[in-house]
């Protein structure tokens, strides 16, 4: 199971990297969202994927259970999903607002903060 998940994680990473190469900001948003999910899946896989043994410690058992899926990475992912969701919502709105007020979703044309030619750029000193 881990093996197939690892390949899937790799594929999603590749897809998100491809998306993030784009000049279109909306593809960039999708790429970042995919990347976030790839990471969550990666951490999920790192903590072993198994459903045979529940991670419950029997009564009077002292020691470490073997063969269970580690619940801690799943708790970590839960945190990461919540954070990732908030950030995704933010960049989605940001992209929309930027598109509305800048009139473009091509990152090459977004040059208001960094103009190509500055006026009066000649300092005589």
């Amino acid at each position, binding site marked *: 199971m881990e093996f197939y998940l690892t390949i899937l994680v790799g594929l999603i990473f590749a897809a998100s990297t491809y998306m993030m190469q784009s000049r279109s900001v909306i593809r960039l948003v999708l790429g*970042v969202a995919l990347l976030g999910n790839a990471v969550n899946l*990666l951490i999920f896989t790192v903590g072993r994927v198994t459903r045979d043994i529940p991670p419950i410690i029997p009564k009077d058992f002292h020691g470490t259970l073997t063969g269970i899926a580690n619940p801690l990475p799943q708790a970590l992912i839960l945190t990461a999903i919540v954070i990732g969701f908030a*950030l995704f919502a933010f960049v989605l709105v940001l992209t929309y607002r930027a598109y509305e007020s800048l009139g473009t979703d091509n990152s090459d044309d977004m040059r208001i903060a960094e103009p190509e030619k500055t006026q009066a750029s000649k300092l005589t000193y």
Partner: protein
Amino acid sequence: MADPNLISEAMRTTPTLLAEWKILTPMLAPLVLAAISLILRQKDQWQFYIAFTAALIAMIGSGFLVFDIIIDGPQSLVMSGWLAPYGIAFTADSLSAIFAFIASLVTLLIILYSPADVDKAASKAGYYTLIMMLLVGVNGSFLTGDIFNLYVWFEVMLISSFGLLILGGDKIQLDGAVKYAFLNLLGTTFFLIATGLLYGVTGTLNFADLFGKVAASEATGTLAILSVLFLFAFGIKAAAFPMYFWLPAAYHTPRVAVSAIFAGLLTKVGIYALMRIFTIVFPEGNGAAFELFGIIGGLTVIVGGLGAIAQTELRRMLAYLLMSGVGMLMIGISIHTQLSLMATVQYAIHSMLVMTGLYLLSGVIGRMAGSFEIAKIGGIVMQNHFVAIAYFGLALAVMGLPPFSGLWPKYMMVMAAFEQGHYWLITAILVGSFLTIAAVGRASIQMIWRGGDVDTPDGQYEARGKRLENKQLRIMMLPISIIFLLTLWLGVSPNTMIRQADLAAYDLLNVEQYIQATFDTGEPEQ
């Protein structure tokens, strides 16, 4: 009933003393007051006082923490009655405490400046709340003893900085924010990847526990890759050479107070994370990391200097100067001796104060001249001597010239590089300093001494721009004067800073105390 011996291995049996909570004050006070300010967001006249109180409590709390650590060594508290490494630990050593102190101080000064820069609408939209949450994220990052928790604090910091960056929603702000948001998001995502894999390799997230487990691990190849991933993630945060593009794209777009707090705090958190992780998790650097640090640092110093010369906009020039400073810090981590880490800590403190001061001052100068274009600013010295003197002092400080605080860390850094025989790093530091002097000097002559904009002949003075009201000017100049006096004091009498930096560097290189403090939390007194 479960076996009491077993419980005492994972949970504390002693009560948590009130005094143990003091380590959380720098983070808890702004968090609680930010929540209160959000409730009272309609009362915009109260917001300033709430934020001021929050930063003041955080500053006093971290100040006490600094003294406690000098006397008793690193302090630690593990949440919810667990013992390390099971619970989430907060551990503070001399480095965390002094950084938290300076960060709270910088925030306090920026809040003092804010009434001149923030209108009612922005205050109602949550400006002060976001400033407080930014401080929560920054102080949390400094004080946490758990690597996943560090990720969470990074995100707290990031989301508040997003809010501050777009507050007002001008075109230019949205443009800058798009670049800032995506690149920083990428950085934290890589941090998360590295953290997840590190847990996969070692089975722990606690810094103190990671120290032994990473050293004992046999997956050296994976760990080498992880160390480079961490370097990449924090390199983006710190705006080091090939990952810096978001910084000059964004830092000149928001209001001046926001630029100033970003310049003072955000990149330093990236540097702090690098210092922490590459002393306690990867003390050997694992792989080529330390050589990489040197190359990245050297290039950052030089590229920052070149960028500063090329800029014609005051705040963008400052952004490149800030970046050049980040390069210095990276060089310090790369050399990795007591002396170089001492210089790094000092330089970080110096850079936090001086860059904040310069950004705040750029607000005053921009208001006086009505523009941030260096070519259109002129005759500051004729308009107001006080502003000109403050600018001159902070400019000397950022160049690293005496009698201001930039001199000592730079001197020590060169000495440390010399001792270890890293001659090209010395070259990079000196070339970078020279470029900084050229950039700042040229801008100063134009802005301070020339009578007007670029075409004004020498010797003529044309009165232009707006005269600021005295009340406004007084509000704006108060924090700048405090920074000016602090940097002068740290330059003339550097003993206090050197002693504290020495302790911080010692704690970084000798992590036993840090580890002991984390594991001893809640143990019964012997």
